[in-house]
């Protein structure tokens, strides 16, 4: 059972992004821990050392550093067996105090409030702390120096330069970086490379190729495209909006997030909805509306479905059901029109899983140094091997065989180059609007593909939300 938990937790890293931007709508239990106290007063006796080329963050090499790692889907092995030994090798005199917990807020929050904070914290899991509140309370260390410091093992580059596009921004608040979002999820169309090879099917780059291929697949008795309407319609929303983003750049999605009037009825969204609505009408099976994600994913493992829109946790989630010979691979969503502003290789990928140094710790610089170790190429590769999750360290797993799906995801990022975009955040900001998008996309895909209706419906819901003063609004730029 725990196997499944792991992947489920990975799946939920999507939701964790809410907290990555610091705006988690924490349910029920969140009420218990709503307040993050104090912030103004300085903590005395913070350890510092002399900065040098060897010690760019100026840590005190003799001071111990205390870290707290969430013991969930990713486990803690990457910290105990990889990061800590690497850190100790570099700083043999600095002791690493390590705590693993499943309840981050229970363990850490009282200590933050009492001014007795650990130095580096992995804020994650169902009981993660509201990171926005922590930043607002001045309890997170400004990580600008970390990102400007030279990389731990890539010569000639700063830490920031070794990361994928957008990685620093995702942990930034009012322009200042406070968190490292370490793991990296790639979204796209997942398929079985073996099945495609056997049938001579090639991954489509244009929409015409896509529909032509779908016809071929259908003729071969396989359902060309599928997603689970019952509980995983948000995969479909992501597919549709990624297409919209590729047609009209990420600005389309930013407008949607910012609840800009007309954002949902913009030509790019309409175009994407039309294209996908057609896929729904022609190539999707009606019964999928009643299925759960695991059921549809299982059918893909049985080669009953060709394409499935999902994130890179899929391979790990399905590990138990994947028959030998089934090779997961991911393709970017094909270009909808010839005039798409982003190339066909453009891909949607997002960072998650917060690690931060506490400004109230005794040795926050030590915590930052620990993060620098984590962001090294070597540590990142080991992390990927251990957790089956990519990291924000660009190309860390290039050329190394990890698993078909992860390698394929890694290739996709490399091919996309600068055209990797973060996507949208309204789903975590405005849960109600998100739920409306699920109903709307199911209606579009299973009920005749009326694109205009989809756009109008979402526009109405978004504008109703914009006018609702009881909902706190967020913006991004």
């Amino acid at each position, binding site marked *: *059972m725990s196997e499944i938990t792991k992947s489920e937790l990975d799946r939920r890293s999507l939701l964790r992004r809410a907290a990555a931007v610091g705006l988690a709508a924490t349910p029920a239990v969140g*009420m218990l821990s709503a307040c993050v106290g104090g912030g103004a007063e300085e903590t005395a006796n913070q350890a510092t050392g002399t900065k040098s080329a060897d010690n760019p963050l100026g840590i005190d090499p003799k001071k111990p550093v205390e870290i707290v790692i969430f013991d969930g889907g990713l486990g803690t092995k990457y910290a105990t067996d990889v990061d800590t030994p690497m850190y100790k090798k570099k700083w043999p005199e600095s002791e690493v105090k390590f705590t693993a917990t499943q309840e981050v807020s229970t363990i850490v929050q009282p200590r933050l409030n009492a001014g007795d904070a650990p130095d580096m914290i992995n804020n994650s899991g169902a009981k993660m702390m509201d990171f926005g509140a922590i930043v607002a309370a001045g309890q997170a260390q400004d990580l600008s120096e970390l990102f400007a410091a030279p990389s731990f093992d890539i010569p000639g580059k700063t830490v920031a330069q070794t990361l994928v596009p957008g990685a620093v921004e995702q942990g930034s608040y009012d322009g200042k970086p406070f968190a490292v979002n370490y793991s990296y999820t790639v979204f796209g169309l997942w398929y079985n490379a073996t099945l495609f090879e056997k049938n001579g099917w090639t991954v489509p780059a244009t929409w015409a190729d896509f529909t032509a291929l779908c016809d071929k697949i259908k003729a071969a008795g396989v359902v060309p495209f599928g997603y689970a309407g019952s509980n995983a319609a948000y995969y479909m929303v992501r597919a549709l909006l990624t297409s919209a983003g590729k047609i009209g750049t990420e600005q389309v999605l930013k407008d949607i997030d910012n609840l800009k009037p007309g954002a949902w009825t913009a030509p790019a969204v309409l175009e994407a909805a039309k294209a996908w609505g057609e896929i729904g009408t022609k190539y999707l099976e009606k019964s999928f509306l009643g299925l759960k994600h695991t059921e549809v994913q299982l059918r893909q493992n049985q080669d009953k479905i060709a394409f499935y829109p999902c994130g890179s946790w899929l391979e790990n989630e399905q590990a138990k059901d994947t028959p030998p010979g089934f090779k997961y691979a991911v393709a970017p969503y094909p270009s909808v029109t010839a005039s798409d502003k982003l190339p066909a290789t453009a891909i949607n990928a997002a960072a998650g899983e917060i690690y931060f140094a506490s400004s109230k710790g005794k040795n926050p610089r030590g915590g930052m140094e620990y993060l620098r170790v984590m962001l090294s190429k070597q540590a990142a590769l080991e992390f990927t091997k251990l957790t089956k999750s990519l990291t924000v360290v660009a190309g860390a797993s290039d050329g190394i065989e990890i698993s078909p799906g992860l390698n394929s995801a890694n290739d996709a990022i490399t091919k996309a180059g600068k055209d990797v975009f973060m996507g949208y955040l309204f789903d975590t900001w405005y849960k109600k609007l998100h739920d409306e998008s699920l109903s709307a996309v199911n209606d579009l895909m299973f009920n005749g593909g009326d694109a205009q209706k989809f756009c109008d419906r979402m526009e109405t819901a978004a504008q109703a939300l914009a006018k609702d003063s009881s909902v706190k609004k967020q913006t991004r730029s």
Partner: protein
Amino acid sequence: MARHDEGVVTVGRSRVGTFFANSTGIVFGLVMLFPVYWVLNTAFKPDKEVRSFTPTFWPHEFTLDNFRSALGEELFIPSMINGLIITALAVAAALVVGFLAALAIARFSFYGRRAIILVVLAVQLVPFLALLIPLFLMLQGAGLTNTLVGVALVYLVLLLPYTVWTLRGFISGIPRELDEAAMIDGCTRAQVFWRIILPLTGPGLVATSVYGFIQAWNEFIIINTLNDPKNQNLMAWLLYNQTERGTAWGPLMAGAIITSIPVVIFFLIIQRNIATGLTAGAVKG
């Protein structure tokens, strides 16, 4: 409906009618039993069989892995113990408090009696979901969120209306003359309640405790809202497993079986009394 010697009464006499009745009974019984059978069927199947595309109606390979897996889960045993504690607390408290309240309502006439009855009746109609937020805030204020006692208190309130209502029916059914006779014989009023009414209410107490046990044991929304994962009952644990781990059917069903054991045992023990208890309460209600 006795068959009269003269053969006047014909109810249920025709063979066709009897056959029809029997078959309907069997079909209906099967429909009722089906999910129980399905739980058992799934619980003893190996994982790959559970996950196969077409449902199989009998395990081809018999396994106890699912039970091991469920029992091995970190919070399974603690959740079960939590559930038992909460249920026992709530049911016991409901019986004591409910019995006394029912006595007061059934045996005395006083100002506000009708109002109390109305409130009791209305409360059992209120979906508790509507009160979750204030309850949460209230218990939080009292430091009772994330405790077993806090949940038991809420369950007590939840169980009370039915308990009071049913026991009141029972007590009203006991002739007052009995009380009076006993008092003439020198019993105090308290002794009357303790020695006469309490024993005569026995079946009612049984019926309400069953009802209460089932309700409290199977509740998961309130406890899920009030408590952390460590202080859940088994039902909330199961629900978590259902939503978070959509595929783990086998262990889930095995968990369901283990979860039902206390209820089934409890039910089988008092099974004889239950129908009597229920009707007595209802008919005289």
